[in-house]
Every structure is written in structure tokens, then in C-alpha cells.
């Protein structure tokens, strides 16, 4: 999985690409831990624009991030949802757990 990390002001964006699955564990954690340590960040946007596959362990990683972010007073937003990625997140009703932006 590819991850690009942008921080501007109180907003951090993690742009993901490729397959977001079990093998992405280490990369994803390394990327969000950096953002969690950045005190100024209030909102973490996970952008799925370039993601073409998402499995249940990816959903687990999002839940873990959500829990850690809540602990540091940050909000996690899911963005760029499309195609099968949107379908998987919809079936799991993640819209009820995360803020979602188009």
C-alpha cells in the first residue's frame, strides 16, 4: 500500500493507494502514529481515492485509529469513497462510526 502524508494547520490527510489489507498493517500504523503525535492536528482525513481493495483487517485498523485518535482529542474523517471501497464501508455501516466526506 502507498501512503502520502500531508499536514496543513490542524488537518492531516493520509492519502492511501493500492490494496488496503492485512499486509498494510505496519505502513499504516507508522503513518498514523506520526500524525497522532502532532499536537496541532485536530482532524485526520483518511483519503481512499486511490484505494482499490479494502478487507476486514483494514476496517479493524480504522477502528484502532479511531480509538487512539479519540484518546488524543482528534477526529477521524473518511473521504474519497468510491466503488467497492464505498460498498465495503457501507455494508459495515462505518458511516455510523466515522464522519464521512465526499
Amino acid at each position: 500500500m502507498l501512503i502520502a502524508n500531508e499536514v496543513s494547520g490542524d488537518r492531516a490527510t493520509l492519502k492511501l493507494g493500492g490494496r488496503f489489507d492485512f499486509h498494510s498493517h505496519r505502513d499504516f500504523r507508522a503513518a498514523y502514529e506520526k500524525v497522532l503525535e502532532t499536537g496541532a492536528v485536530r482532524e485526520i482525513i483518511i483519503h481512499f481515492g486511490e484505494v482499490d481493495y479494502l478487507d476486514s483487517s483494514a476496517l479493524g485498523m480504522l477502528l484502532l485509529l479511531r480509538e487512539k485518535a479519540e484518546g488524543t482529542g482528534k477526529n477521524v474523517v473518511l473521504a474519497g469513497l468510491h466503488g467497492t471501497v464505498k460498498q465495503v464501508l457501507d455494508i459495515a455501516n462505518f458511516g455510523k462510526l466515522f464522519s464521512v466526506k465526499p
Partner: protein
Amino acid sequence: MNNPGLTILIVDDTPTNARQLEAVARKLGHVAILAGNGVEAIDKFKSEQPDLIFMDIMMPVMDGITAARHIRGLPTDKWTPIVFFSALEQMQDIVRGLEAGGDDYIVKPASLQILRAKINSYARMLSLQNEVRANAEELRNWRMDAEEQSRLGAHVMSRLTDAASLRDPMIRHFNMPADTFSGDLLCAARAPGEVLNVLLADAAGHGLAAALSAMPLTQAFYSMTAKGFPLPSIAEELNRKLKSILPPDRFVAATLAAIDVRNQTVEVWNGGNPDALFINTRGEVAMQWASNHPPLGILPDKLFSGMTETVVFHEPGDLLLCSDGLTEAENPAGGWFAIDGVRDHLSRAQGGEARFTSLLKGVMEHLGGHPGRDDISALMVSVPIDRRRQIRFDTPIPSHQGHLAEWRLDLSYGAQELRYIDVVPAVLGFVTQINALKPHQGALFLIFSELFNNALDHGLLGLDSATKSWIGGFELYMNQRGERLAKLRNGRIDIAFQLHQDGTRAVLDISMTDTGPGFDFEQRLNKPDALGVGNEQAYGRGIALVKNLCDQVVYSGNGNKVWARYLVSDLILENEESEDEAARRKPDGAGDVADLVMF
């Protein structure tokens, strides 16, 4: 280097050569062993198991080349480098040495620096080799442990998944693991009122971790179903259980369904699984339940919703639950089987068995011989329309009078408690602890739940059963019920059970009084043949069923009081009672005879 020194075998028939090497080796912290010819070398190799060998070629008794060949032929589990150290310097000598199993060749005489550098170089290589060997061994142990854990996991999961209740003739199922065993869990059980509950759970990931996440669900599902808890309460309990034991990144997608053939309803809770489908006999999707909750184990109790969707069916069909392993099964080009594939294959065949086979065949063809990336499971319930279905319970065996203890239970529930307590399973939990009543759990569940639901729905909530017979009326009825129950502030339901002897029989009297306005029982209950085959009405069947299961049912007051007598068993009397004693045992609580309508 802090590695322990090597054991170096030095084979040379010239003592000065041997001693020179020995001195270098000792100085570097190694142990040297000496051998004067090939035969001695082989003996020392066997007894001392050296790490490195320096071997002369021309020696008496046995030359170095022969000795090296022999040593290479011995069984060993480690690599011992052999360095030829010889005055022979021709190209063919060197090649011969290496071909005999030598790893290196040094021409005599060699400088001390060269010998030192060679020994250090082999020490490094050997330490690397030891590390690799240790890692390989660790990996082998890990693998053996993992296989053992898998074996146990597979055994436990297969026992849990292969519960006898899944062999119900209405049920068909398959479960294809992506790993050695599946993290998808299928359960089915009958509630006391004959309602069939099924569960298809898919834990995140697959293999042992997934199976471990799903296992805690089985016990709660089976025990709550056996006690007759409603589906929303079961969903809430399963969520609570998983939330308390799973880490935040683990969860279980689940579909729960309750199939009630008698009332012709299917109730579904779907959190995170693909749509549940009800396919009618023409192969059309008659009903569909999308996931409208997050999976189990994510939300805390107060945010979790056990809200179900209940639909009335008017024709037979097949209810299908599946995991996303089925809809996301990929063909070699990466295309998903999808819910459309599921629907297509189900509608291609007629009849439960053929339909299910068609689905299984369809997904296997789609996979094109490749294993699924995720566990693939499906469970299908063939749902009949069966209005003739007679509820029959086994005739109880006569019991000895001495075993019958008279027993009485009085309960009173106010509005506050009625709003959140599952009264039927809670009360029946008490009642069926009485030994004499245990075998009657099914019948008592039906009788009590009908009487109680009448008291609550009609007496306190003022719902009209006639609503249920409209198109879409059942859903309307259930919505109204939910809303009115949430707003209930006044009212009370009194319940009494009494187990006692009535002549030569043991009977259970159940009486119930609600504070509602009652109903015109004389008119309503005198309708002929409410249980009759042709009765399309969704209401009135409940009381007829109670009448069918009980010895007597009596309404009194303004319809807000009901008394029912249920035959528990015939008694084998040990000493005959006098007529007077028997006569004194009249039903009480039946009210003024003038108010009674007797069945």
C-alpha cells in the same frame, strides 16, 4: 568476537606443521585436536565433532583425499568446512581436493597471517551458520506449535459449527475455509415456541484469530434462544459479550434471523454481512435485508441497536444468509461474485436442495479452481407455508403423586418494568425450573407468550390485531407497538401460576389480569373455527392456539382477566383421595360464573 572458540581438527603426519597450526589456533582462542593420518582423522571427527578441519593430503595409512570423501559420506546435520593444507600445488591436486568435498585449499608453506585470516574467516561463517540453524529450528518449532493450535481450532470450530441443530431439515449450509479452518460460524436452534433462530457470523480476518473471535457467540446464542429471548435482546447480548472481550480492531459481522412459520414472519438483524435474501418459488427476491448496523463488538452497549426488521411472508420461499467471502469471491480476472451472482444462481433452480446446489456450483465455477481469499459460508432456510401445522407436544407420562409439590408464583409488572424487561423468557425461566414443568417448556412458552402479549399489546398498548391483516400491516403493528411501549407510563399486569392436584391430575393454572379496558370477548371468541385451515386472519389465532393447548380457558371481567388450566400429567394416586377432598379442589380465581365464557 564473543563467540566461544571453535574446535579445530588438524590432520598432518609432520609434527612441526601440525604444531605451527595448533599454535595459531590456540592463540586465537580455539581448541585444537591433532590426528596423524586419515584413519585417525575419521575417528576424531566422529568422537570430537570438530567445527573446522585442516587436512594434509599425503599421509601414511590413509591419505587426506580419501579421508575427506569418507567424512563427507558420514551422516551429519551441520556443515564442517574441510580446508586442505598441502605441499601439492598443481592445479589438478587442488581440483581433486575440492571435488573430494574440500571447501578450500591452502598451499604449504603458508604465512601465519594467511592461516590466521583463514581461521577468522571460517569462524565468522560458522557463527553465521549457527545463527541460521537456530532460526530455522525456531521456525520449525513455531510451525509445529501453529499446526497444533490449528488442529485444536479446527476441531473446536467444527464441533461448534456442526451442532446437531444445523441438521434441521429446513436448513442447508456450507462453510469453505480460506485457511485450514473457517472463522465463519453457523448456528441454528429452536426457541421454545418452535421459532427457528439462525446465526451466521463472520469474524474479521480468517484462521485461528478469526475463529477465536467468533467462538464466544455460540453459548450466548444457544442459551438465549433456548430460553425464548427475542432477537433484539440476543443481538444486544452478543454485542456486549464481544465488546467486553475483543480488542478494538477485532469485530464480528453477523446476521441473526428468526423464522416463525406459525405466524408467517421472518425477523432479521444484519450487522456487516451482505444482504439477507428471501427468494420465492418463482425465483424472485421477495424480501431483502441490507446490513443496517455496524458489526458486533464495536459499539458500547448504550450506542448499540438491536433493532430488527420483521416481514410477513404470504408464500413459501428460501431465506439465504451469507458472509462477504461469498459476494467477494473473485474469478481469475478479479471480478466479484457479488450479491447479483448469489441472486442469479438461487433463482436458476426450483426447490431448496436444487437451489442451494446451484449456488454452491455457481461460486465454485466463479472461483475457477482457486481457493477463496476469505472464508466462504452460506446458510439457507427453506420456509414453508403451513397453516395446517398442528402443534403437538408429547403426552406426559403419568407421575407418582408423591412427586408433585404444590407450587405457586405471583408476579406483578408495572409500566416502568414492562418497558425494558423481556417478561416472557424471564418468567418462564422461573417456571420451567420446577421439575414437573420442565418437559412442558414448549407448550407453556406458547401459552404464556400468547396470554402475556395479548395483555400487553391489546390491554395496555391498545393495539388492534386487525391491523396485521392489512398489506404492510404487520410492520405498522410492530412499529406502533415499539412506539407505544416506549411511551407507556401507566398500567400493570398481574400474573399468577399455580401447580396443584385436581382429582387424578396435576394441573397448572395460569391467570393474568391487566389494567386495560378489556375487549368484547363474547363476540370475538365465539367466532367459529378460529384455528381452522381456511383462516387467513393473522389475528385471533393466538387465543385459539391457547385454547387448543389448554384444558380450559376462561375470560372474565370486561375481558381483561384470563384464566387457563393446563394439564401437566395424570397422577398415579398412592392412597385414594376421598370425594370430599377432590371436590374442594375447585379452580379459584375464575370469577363469577355468570361472567364466564367457557371453551
